[in-house]
């Protein structure tokens, strides 16, 4: 149990330290607007294209569409 959770414990203190320093701040975001979603799972076509659009991955010939 310990060997697995040990790494998570270190991460806990790493993240906690930077949050208390004021360098980072963790905020909640709904799954609808979670832009990292397209790197995580195979999504449906519409959702995939929506996220790509939000990330700025667009047709470079007509960027203002």
């Amino acid at each position, binding site marked *: *149990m310990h060997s*697995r*959770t040990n*790494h*998570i*414990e270190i*991460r*806990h203190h*790493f*993240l*906690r330290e*930077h*949050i208390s320093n*004021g*360098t*980072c*701040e*963790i*905020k*909640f*975001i*709904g*799954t609808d607007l*979670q*832009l*990292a*979603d*397209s*790197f*995580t*799972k*195979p*999504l*449906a*076509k519409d959702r*995939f*294209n929506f996220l*790509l659009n939000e*990330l*700025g*991955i*667009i*047709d*470079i*010939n007509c*960027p203002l569409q």
Partner: protein
Amino acid sequence: MDKCKSISKPFSTSCHLDHDVARNPIDETKYRGLIGSLLYLTASRPNIMFVVCMCARFQSAPKESHFNAAKRIMKYLQGTKVVGLWYPGNVSMSLTGYSNSNFVGCKIDRKSTSDTCHLLGSSLISWQCKKQAYVALSTTKAEYIAAGSCCAQTLWLRQQLNDFGILLNKIHILCDNTSAINLRKKIPLCIQEPIILK
């Protein structure tokens, strides 16, 4: 594959690759060459990142199903030759990190995948997709590990921006798991868990 038909997505929605022992093996060198080229492309096309990383895990003993998945990416690229990252001018210099994970994304060893991306203003500047090194026991832990790597990348980007004279503080990391966010102020679950198990 110059004249292949184009498709709208680089993966099928039920895309779960495994070792697939029963299928015909294919030439390893050819498969590795294809994956090498695709990995190079992910530096400018984050849209194929997820599926290329998935295919790259089967470079030893690749089977027909893995090759078909890789060919599907090529078909997608055929239809998206003009798609690229767009960096508009006059954007605000605010850095935001997004962290996400898919719990038990890999069906073989039950490890999750961390996914992080960073936006400067509204432009994507950094992205990552990596299978975690250890097995997370809950979605909270998987998300927390992802938030940790997102924080590490944020610090590097902050330092980089600092060198350019842009000083940023309280950089937002956006996470879609409330328990992972609450974990930073409560007693860590990893300390509580052995007590529950007794």
